[in-house]
């Protein structure tokens, strides 16, 4: 009986150790706070979701290839406070995005602000604006 309990306990511990913890979202360290990169592109999707809303758009990179960007804003109530909504963007919209870039140079970042094709300027929801 004791051996069975020991085996089951070892298996349980092993399972717990093996399960990867969900990595953090609350973190600034991957971003370059002082930098801004301006990217023009076409919206492919606008995800209105917790913990952060994010905008997907395609832009031509330096080589003329299509770069798929994902840039994040804050959570829906924060974005409503900033004047955004679930219907602010739709696929096909032309946008210019001021991005707080990552240190690793990937096509992800935080939205500092977005300029819509009609010239309207949307601030990025508080904490990420320079």
């Amino acid at each position, binding site marked *: 009986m004791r051996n069975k309990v020991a085996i089951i306990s070892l298996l349980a511990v092993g399972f717990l150790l093996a399960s990867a913890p969900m990595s*953090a979202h609350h*973190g600034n360290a*991957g971003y370059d706070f002082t930098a801004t990169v301006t990217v023009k592109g076409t919206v492919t999707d*606008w995800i209105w979701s917790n*913990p952060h809303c994010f905008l997907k758009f395609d832009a031509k990179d330096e080589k003329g290839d299509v770069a798929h960007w994902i840039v994040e804003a804050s959570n829906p*109530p924060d974005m409503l406070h900033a*004047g955004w909504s679930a219907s602010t963007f*739709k696929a096909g919209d032309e946008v210019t995005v001021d991005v707080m870039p990552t240190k690793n140079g*990937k096509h*992800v970042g935080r939205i500092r602000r977005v300029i819509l094709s009609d010239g309207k300027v949307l601030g990025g929801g508080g904490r990420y604006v320079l």
Partner: protein
Amino acid sequence: MVNCRMFSTIGLFAVVVSVLVVSPVPPTLHSQSAVPKQSGDSQNGNNGDWWVSHDKWNTPLPDKSVYKDKKPAPAPPRDLSGTWDGLAEGGTQAKGPKEFPDDASHKPDPPYSALGKAARMRNKAGEGEEQVAVGDVNDPVDSCDPLGFPRSDLFSLKAMAIAQTPNYVLWLNQYYNVYRTIWTDGRELPKNPVPRYYGYSVGHWEDDYTFVVETVGTDERTWLDNVGRPHSSDLRVVERLHRPSRDILELTVTIDDPKMYTKPWVASNKLTLHLLPADFDMGEMICSPSEMSEYKKLVADPVAGDSK
């Protein structure tokens, strides 16, 4: 004993609960291609009409300028009920509680004991001066574990609602969908309770405009604030809610945890909350594990990863 005020507070309670409970369930990560024009694009308090023309659903918290010209009115006695805005006067507290931030101002730390300091170093936050790389953050909220109390006072105190019944006060936070029951039926705090994420609270009126809440039995797995200050289950929190006028609530939060801190300290000193319109609808900010997982995959992991 039945009277009009009891009906109106129960009515408010029912409205608040039904709005929170009956909200439609959205699809996970809905993307917006053909959604009709929604709230949020309308004014955020940049003109005097916000009090009349704000959105009735998912009401955005306004720009704080809407409170500037509000004429003071007397507070109703022994009544905290309503929906309140903590954002306007700094309730976000991303870098720690207002009185003890962990930011570039380099204000003093809370009075850690040796145990408290060690516990603080084990909590690896993504915010504040001690912030660590994203992959090293161990904030329980990042796995959608409960925010807990008193972090629900000391972080993300934005829209909140209070409803009063004869036996308890109900406290609801928009962010992280928190509710707390504060018993006013005269019961004593439990001795040696099994810890709970939001603890055990009793409250009483110190005078007609000051409500005092005592809380014990909080679960030590929660962080005290957003930058990883610790607490034990021995923590005792005293909140004072003072209503000097109809539209203002002042929240003072005192932390008393002899295991983690050498003396009590005031984390929040008369943080001002502004009364919101009675029809203000608190939109959801809920930590959903599946949404968090999708966000991690699409955004957080690429941000944290090595260069391509």
